[in-house]
């Protein structure tokens, strides 16, 4: 008898699987795909090296080139103002990778392979967003180490780590926006641009590099003060410089939850319909 257990398990009898089991598969499938994406970083270390060097260069340039001029308006050491902000910037830019990665997968047809498997529908996307978030975390840790070398200090390690966690959570939420964009763009070269372009206004018209009160146009200031990047950057900055403001933290968490609540379903919806041709 060549009929074997595997074919029976995968056959029509498999409909006895419980809802709970299917729910668990969302996580195990995500883990499998995440590992596949992390392998890519592991096997192309040059990708990781440059992704890390670039924000460190930003950090050094801003600190030493603009630091003198900007510290008049920030009061105190610019590095303490800058590093938390630049961590958010790094995490935002790392999310562009989600756009590019998904569009590359789409163009190569591996997405069709995944879509023809009886796996969780969210896992291909969640595996991508979580791998890119981990990559972002790695880069941020190196930046904090670089920051320490040039004079940055956490006021309070507990609050500082909470700030780090908040920054990473925000980065995770943003990768879902990037994933949605990647599924709409599809072409890898267009994705290179589309993945970044929307990040520039959000990054620069924010409190990441300079205090928003120094912005002269009122409409710009109003936007910059209230948009999520500033809200989260301010909260992270406060936490890293030792100020715990629960209201601020709650608003940041609401932004994070709101972004995921909108873009995760949108990305999954799009994934179910997207065709790689």
């Amino acid at each position, binding site marked *: 008898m060549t009929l074997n257990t*595997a074919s029976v398990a995968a056959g029509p009898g*498999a*409909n006895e699987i419980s809802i709970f089991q299917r729910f668990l598969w969302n996580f195990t499938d995500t883990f*499998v795909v995440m590992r596949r994406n992390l*392998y890519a970083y592991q096997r*192309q270390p040059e990708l990781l090296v440059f992704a890390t060097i670039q924000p460190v260069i930003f950090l050094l340039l801003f600190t030493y080139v603009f630091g003198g001029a900007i510290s008049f308006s920030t009061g105190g050491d610019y590095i303490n103002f800058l590093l938390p902000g630049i961590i958010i910037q790094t995490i935002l830019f790392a999310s562009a990778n989600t756009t590019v990665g998904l569009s590359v997968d789409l163009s190569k047809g591996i997405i*069709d392979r995944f879509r*023809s*498997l009886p796996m969780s529908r969210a896992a291909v996307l969640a595996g991508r967003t979580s791998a890119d978030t981990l990559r972002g975390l790695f880069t941020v840790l190196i930046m904090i180490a670089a920051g320490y070398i040039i004079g940055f200090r956490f006021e309070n390690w507990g609050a500082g780590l909470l700030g780090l966690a908040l920054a990473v959570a925000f980065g995770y939420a943003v990768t879902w926006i990037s994933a949605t964009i990647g599924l709409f763009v599809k072409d890898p070269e267009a994705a290179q641009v589309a993945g970044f372009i929307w990040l520039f206004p959000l990054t620069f018209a924010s409190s990441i590099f300079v205090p928003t009160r120094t912005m002269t146009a009122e409409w710009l200031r109003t936007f910059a003060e209230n948009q999520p990047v500033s809200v989260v950057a301010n909260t992270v900055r406060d936490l890293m410089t030792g100020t715990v403001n629960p209201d601020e933290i709650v608003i940041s968490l609401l932004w994070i939850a709101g972004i995921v609540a909108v873009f995760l379903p949108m990305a999954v919806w799009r994934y179910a319909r997207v*065709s790689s041709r």
Partner: protein
Amino acid sequence: MPNSNSIIAENVVKHFGDIKALDGVSIAAETGKVLGLLGPNGAGKTTLVRILTTLLKPDSGVVSVGGLDVLRQKQRVREIIGLAGQYAAVDEILTGRENLVMVGRLYHMSRRAAKQRAAELLAQFALTEAADRSVKTYSGGMRRRLDLAASMVARPNILFLDEPTTGLDARARIAMWDTIRELVSDGTTLLLTTQYLEEADELADQIVVIDHGRVIAEGTADQLKANMAADFIDITVSNPQQTAQASQLLQPLSDESPHTDEQRGHVSIAVESGAQSIAEVVRLLDAQSVSIAELNLRRPSLNDVFLSITGHEIVEEESKPKRRGFGRRRSA
């Protein structure tokens, strides 16, 4: 389900914008048999495969695979099918083994079972030696084999192969045919799409010919050939400049106009009975001093069948550059 159809499509219609990719296609693949879907690029073969494998939603029509409604029971269909070919792919950065283990894990096999199955498949598809190398280093034939192996991970009873040999050289193609024959020898139902008549002839029990989104003929290879109720006589004239003259002379012998290749001096005519007509051919040409270099009597090939149904040759259809190199176009 003995004696039933494992793959059924009824009156499937699919538009892409204004383009009608499928215009009411119906097919049925008998359980345990190989159904060849034969047609040129752009005929709608891949679209139909994508619909049958849950990747694409048809505008209308009924599709069922393994007794399941493909539109309503997607996840369960995915559990019982395997898909390989043009569009299903493998990860380039992972090794061959990692690819197969990953697919096994996504079928929710245990880590151990996935590893064991990967090792079996690597051996079966002659990839053991390259198993731990990145797929980037694989040849085209090796990639196709890995892709095929990936589709076999869960031992599906129903397999879809979308142009499994497109882009392979002749040697790799014949090796792939052997592999496919072996795969289906245990009763797997296979839907195979191809633009190669030879491939359909070699592998398929039943053939459905499709062109411009419609089924234009179906049957076994022999039935398709027999329906033409004709033999073919291929003549090569010594002086290619006399090709047109020869064609004109032989016209009365056939209901269809002869096919000619003026550069090579080929003339091919369909006749009721080859044995009777062959003397006539020689007499007609000899009377006008058209000398014959070569003369062959043969049964019609699938290429003739396709030509007589559609009026164009299968390989001359416009192609997407992405799917086919320029080399083949030049030779066509």
